[in-house]
């Protein structure tokens, strides 16, 4: 039963991502225009008349949230937002947990794949039945639904893959998109011939990027055909060693060919971005969130996102998933004002400014939005259902991902064999299960 639920959930979420992206309009010009249609007007059950201040803990910096914050203030002049930003990832989670543990949790906060930790501790308010939740697709709401209770409203869907410099590709005679891993290798050779580093990867321990294209190879080789792998991992029917090793060995051929190199371990995202935006590197990993920053660094950068292609011709894949959700602290002293924020972020006026900054898909019914044209070439792969984020379904996701990241770095530095990576992840999975 649990396995069936996992399969249904993964299919629903893939459908939700496709739904959200399908609603996005595509523009062929470099200047995007925004068009939107209204959604069902969200109505509040309680009006807030007395001036209140709510503390909002955001996953995104104020520079990305400011437009939404300003628009909220216009609509709700009685509510002041005390904005706080937690650096994406572990720093955000640790900050949120520390605040909650001290009894000083924010009124409104962002929840991600670990939302059940907060739900179990009683920190997420049930908003099932609130009128504004019907502005979202049911499949997207399922991401934060448990036993009929709704604990958040979705913000974004994300997707990521290879970004390639089109000007350099033309110069090197590289044809896009890639149909197989051999095409990718040939492209790397072509870039090397014109004196350009083919691939930039932030392989340092401060990012997980060393794994990105290894994941994609696994998706292309395994997940395109095996839809039950993650539920089998959770039930113990299979292991990472058994399922992932063949694909990891295919990825490892890129190390043998000198495409993945140990100097990538000494680089972080900012350094790789600097190389990519200045044309020192032809290809890198990135997502819908990357385009805005890259174009600011170099407005003339001519890039496109393409899917990864595996060993088997035509076996393409991307990383993709449902992103974050807004939630209200069940222990908030300003519940009504906090709900007003969720209500506002359930409308195009609230959500579209953030969508524009993140270049993400959103789940508002009937709302059209633009995605950066640099993302167009990847959308077909998403529409074909080839976007994956399996870690969202593993019982011990954080522990397994951490161990996998350490293991792959050790492979790249020559301290571990690729055949042992799966076993290391299995060990971490087992020890996290037997607390």
């Amino acid at each position, binding site marked *: 039963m649990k396995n069936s639920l996992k399969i249904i959930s993964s299919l629903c979420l893939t459908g939700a991502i496709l739904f959200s992206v399908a609603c996005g309009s595509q523009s062929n010009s470099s200047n995007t225009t925004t068009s939107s249609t209204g959604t069902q007007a969200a109505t509040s059950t309680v009006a807030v008349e007395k001036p209140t201040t709510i503390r909002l803990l955001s996953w995104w910096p104020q520079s990305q949230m400011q437009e939404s914050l300003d628009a909220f203030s216009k609509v709700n002049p009685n509510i002041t937002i005390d904005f706080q930003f937690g650096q994406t990832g572990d720093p955000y989670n*640790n900050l949120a947990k520390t605040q909650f543990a001290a009894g000083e949790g924010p009124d409104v906060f962002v929840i991600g794949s670990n939302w059940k930790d907060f739900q179990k501790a009683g920190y997420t308010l049930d908003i099932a039945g609130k009128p504004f939740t019907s502005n979202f697709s049911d499949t997207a709401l399922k991401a934060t639904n448990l036993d009929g209770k709704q604990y958040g409203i979705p913000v974004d869907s994300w997707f990521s893959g290879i970004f390639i410099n089109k000007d350099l590709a033309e110069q090197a005679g590289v044809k896009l998109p890639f149909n197989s891993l051999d095409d990718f290798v040939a492209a790397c050779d072509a870039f090397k011939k014109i004196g350009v580093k083919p691939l930039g990867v932030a392989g340092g321990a401060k990012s997980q990027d060393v794994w990105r294209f290894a994941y994609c190879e696994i998706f292309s080789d395994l997940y395109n055909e095996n839809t039950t792998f993650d539920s089998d991992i959770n039930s113990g029917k299979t292991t990472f060693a058994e399922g992932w090793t063949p694909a990891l060995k295919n990825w490892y051929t890129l190390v043998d060919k000198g495409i993945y190199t*140990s*100097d990538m371990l000494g680089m972080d995202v900012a350094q790789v971005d600097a190389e990519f935006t200045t044309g020192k590197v032809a290809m890198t990993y990135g997502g819908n969130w990357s385009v805005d920053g890259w174009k600011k660094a170099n407005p003339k950068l001519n890039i496109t996102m393409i899917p990864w292609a595996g060993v088997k011709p035509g076996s393409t894949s991307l990383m993709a998933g449902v992103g974050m959700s807004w939630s209200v602290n069940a222990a908030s002293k300003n519940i009504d004002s906090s709900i007003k924020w969720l209500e506002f972020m359930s409308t195009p006026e609230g959500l579209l400014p953030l969508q524009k900054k993140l270049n993400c898909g959103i789940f508002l019914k009937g709302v059209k939005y633009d995605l950066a044209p640099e993302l167009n070439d990847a959308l077909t792969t998403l529409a074909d259902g080839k976007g994956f984020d399996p870690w969202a379904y593993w019982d011990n996701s954080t522990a397994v991902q951490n161990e996998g990241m350490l293991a792959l770095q050790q492979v790249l530095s020559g301290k571990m064999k690729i055949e042992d990576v799966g076993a290391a992840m299995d060990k971490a999975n087992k020890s996290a299960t037997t607390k």
Partner: protein
Amino acid sequence: MVNLKIKQIKQELSYEILVIPAVVLFTIFSVLPLLGGLFLSFTDWDGLSFNFKFVGIENYINAFTVSDVFLISFEHTLFIAAVTTILFTILAIPLAVILDSKIPFTKFFRAAFFFPSVPSALVVGYMWSFMLSSSSYGFVNTILGNFGISPINWTGDPTLAFLSIIVVQLWGWTGWHAVIYIANLQSIPTEYYEAAKIDGANIIQSFKYVTLPLLTPAMSMSILFSITGAMKIYDIVYALTGGGPGTSTYVVVQAILKEGINLGKYGMANAASIVLFLVILVITLIQQKVMSRREEGMT
């Protein structure tokens, strides 16, 4: 006699009253959290919920048996503490002697050597990670390239990453330790040097038989700060290498954060923290004992 004692008590009381604010702050921000951490180290607290149960010493056992990350990180941390302490002592003392001598622009050089310890360790770490980066814009590799030297993987090679952390620590803190030695140097009576000169001692002999022994109090302080600082090192390692590649530069505080707090194992994180506290306590007690004997030998 009684009046004298009462007078003495009253006088001491007036000094002790002045210490009370510091004691209160120390108790609130150091002692109570330590006791709280000790309590939580015997529980399975996940950092969020207040429903937790006592698990005895399970966290202490699991921290060092379930995976070897904590052991590896303790090994690395102790190595960094030992190497940086020795090198700080070797480098800071001659630097202090030079900065205490009558060289031109003394104040400027003292400020210049002290300055690296002023910015936050995170800022220093990120700055150095860019300078040592193996990207096309890595400053150090660009300079080396001008001399025909191939790029070096400073923070991506396990051994060089370790070396980079130690070098950056030395760059950042040698000047700070030198200041401690300068303060001690300025308290050494000049008569000792005059007497040594009269006895025919040269510069090196003066340094060996007068300066070095009388620097023992500063050395004691410098070593104490070096050891305790190195045992708690995290921010510079995080910014420079992130603990990688793999676990090759993992330090204890990082292991506590990554393997404990980030995975919701706050009980285990507290257990590892208590072990770290005990290790630092033992090392500093031994160090203080050894140095105080040396100081007594000097008097």
